[in-house]
């Protein structure tokens, strides 16, 4: 279907079904129950899942296929957000032109940065991209917000004010990003018994974008171009010796990857019409690296999994506090309960980054293929176990 082989088609269909049904699937606990805090089916979080999913898919096109580790991808995310908000400010709240501009501007940015950075490989490339991203951050944070030429509005972040131009804004259109009049904040609440599911416009818009982005990524992975990128990863020198100029391929991969990041940045501005410089900081670049590695580098589904995993646990872990812990451990004797709470305490709430750091190190050390590899290992183990059972049965039968 759609030029995909059977395996990819089923993967693609699974992704479509999961994203469409996410508001229901991620809300397994009734609203009033104590376990409702583990629900992830509210718009704010689900939007993050898909937006950062797009970001990670894009990053994976560069890192997973070519092995070039960019440490400055957040720059494109920030540029995407800024351009989208500028469209809101100058022309209209309609999201389509905002996204188009976000993708184009981040693409141009990627051409410039890629042209310079790709002259070097390996660690130099990482450091160069890091330097560019930090430079963009410094520019956005301070320089480009001077009164004469205020492009980024510095520390406050770029916002929409009442006296902004908004040329094509008409009466009757919502005062929020909208799709031809359909406001992005509007949410349909679907009550089923004790459950309540929130079907949010912005989420579905972002989800459709992610499905498109995912489809494009599958096609790219399976194309001759994707083959070429894999060849670069396995041995760029040999590729050069065969007379192929690998640089245009690299640049193309870098630009595509940057445009994905720009799209994600634009979508962030769709869900919430403001853009801040901290989106470009190198910790944000580090985050997308974490997502990709955690999910599984070079796999199709990995980055999406990683993004969802990190955003979900970030949300859950930050919400848990000592009180909640005490509730969980009430069945234990008092002394043990206090000790357990004291042990877990550094890892929850504000300590989420500590957990994330440890988890990340463990994944890099023991499971370089990420969650996907973990799943494969478990599947293989199960298969071997069942095979052994069968073999045992077979020997029993023949013995009889």
């Amino acid at each position, binding site marked *: 279907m759609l030029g995909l082989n059977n395996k990819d088609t089923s993967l693609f269909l699974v992704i479509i079904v999961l994203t469409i049904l996410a508001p229901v699937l991620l809300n397994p606990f009734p609203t009033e129950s104590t376990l409702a805090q583990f629900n992830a089916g509210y718009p704010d979080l689900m939007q993050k899942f898909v937006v950062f999913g797009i970001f990670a898919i894009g990053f994976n096109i560069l*890192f997973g296929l070519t*092995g070039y*580790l960019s*440490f400055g991808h957040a720059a494109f995310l920030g540029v995407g957000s800024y351009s989208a908000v500028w469209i809101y400010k100058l022309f209209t709240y309609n999201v389509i032109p905002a996204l188009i501009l976000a993708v184009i501007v981040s693409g141009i940015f990627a051409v410039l940065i890629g042209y*310079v950075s790709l*002259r*070097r*490989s*390996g*660690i*130099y490339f*990482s*450091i*160069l991209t*890091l*330097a*560019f991203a*930090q*430079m963009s951050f*410094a*520019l956005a944070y*301070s*320089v*480009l917000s*001077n009164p004469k030429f205020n492009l980024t509005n510095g520390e406050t972040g770029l916002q929409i004010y009442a006296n902004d131009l908004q040329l094509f804004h008409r009466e009757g259109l919502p005062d929020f990003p909208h799709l031809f009049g359909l406001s992005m904040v509007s949410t349909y609440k679907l009550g089923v018994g004790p459950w309540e599911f929130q079907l949010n416009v912005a989420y579905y818009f972002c989800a459709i974008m992610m499905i498109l982005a995912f489809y494009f990524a599958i096609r790219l992975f399976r194309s001759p171009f994707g083959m070429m990128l894999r060849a670069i990863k396995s041995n760029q*020198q040999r590729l050069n010796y065969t007379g192929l100029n690998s640089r245009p391929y690299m640049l193309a991969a870098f630009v595509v990857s940057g445009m994905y990041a720009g799209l994600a940045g634009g979508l962030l501005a769709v869900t919430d019409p403001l853009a801040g410089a901290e989106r470009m900081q*190198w*910790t944000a670049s*580090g985050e997308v*690296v974490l997502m990709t*590695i955690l999910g599984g580098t070079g796999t199709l589904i990995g980055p999406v999994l990683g993004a969802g995993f990190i955003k979900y646990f970030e949300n859950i872990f930050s919400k848990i506090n000592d009180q909640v812990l005490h509730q969980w451990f009430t069945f234990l004797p008092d002394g043990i309960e206090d000790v357990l709470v004291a042990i877990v305490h*550094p890892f929850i709430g504000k*300590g989420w*980054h*500590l957990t*994330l*750091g*440890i988890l*990340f*190190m463990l994944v*890099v*050390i023991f499971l*370089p293929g990420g969650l996907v590899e973990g799943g494969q290992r478990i599947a293989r183990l199960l298969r071997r176990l069942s095979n052994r059972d069968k073999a045992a049965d077979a020997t029993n039968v023949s013995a009889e």
Partner: protein
Amino acid sequence: MDALLLQILNGLDKGSAYALIALGLTLIFGTLGVVNFAHGALFMIGAFCAVFIQGLLNLSYETIDETQKDFLGNPLKVKTPYLENWFGPETGGAIIDWAVPLAILFAIPVMIAVGVIMERGLIKHFYKRPHADQILVTFGLAIVLQEVIKYFYGANPIPTPAPSSLAGAFDFGVLFGFDPNAIIYPYWRMIYFVFAMSIIGAVFAFLQFTTFGMVVRAGMADRETVSMLGINIDKRFTMMFGIAAAVAGLAGVMYTPINPPNYHMGMDFLVLSFVVVVVGGMGSLPGAVLAGFLLGILESFASTTWATTTIPGINQVIIYVVAIIVLLTRPRGLMGRRGVMEE
């Protein structure tokens, strides 16, 4: 002329910090071939050694002074550090005042231990893995170290003043015949520069004039041959990792009075230190030091009002711009050697 001198002086202390961190990074890279993203965290841990010592020296007990009243009319509680109790207020106070220099003595063994544990416990297992994996695992380690420090000391910067006798500033202008107060320079920054220079000198002397250093240099040039000669080069390289960690840590200890430490100070310096290493030339020790000072001074020149009014924001981006230009025109950096990190 005086403005020129002032900017050079201003660049020296930041340049010293860059040079020290870059020196450590290059030592690790040259010996073990590992790109250490956790090096900034080592700098930060060094700074928190000073914070720890300051806290330790200030440990105090409370007494109730009946003669004095606080604003509510209750007897005033007076905190007296144990040190003042033991050594008398004069000596005890002086010891507390000199907390930062004293922290150096504490930081050296701690940082060497941290470095050795890091190398043996973690980085050892990553020599055979690709550079990307090394970057990632050290990056993860940096996050963990940061968060641990944040857990204990919170997110706010902690003031750690220099000894009060060194808190003043020196009037350089008078020395060179300019007007008084034209060029004033805090003593502590001067000390920082001298300190950095002596550390750098000590590291170079150690490598150049001791047998240990000679073996290490031989190992840097050709690890295999050295180990074939029956020398346990791994052990020596581990030690070099410890020394590199100590250099970064000392840079951090001494930097605390200039800038109150917080948990993410390491990351801020790390990015710039990488740029410094790249500009200086991967694997070249003199290159790292030279580039450190060069970029520090350049940054300070770019921060003058003249420069910022001519090209707005030049102070924010100058280092990156220089790095990009250097990498494009001299891909090996200023003093990079052939064959080091070509791929």
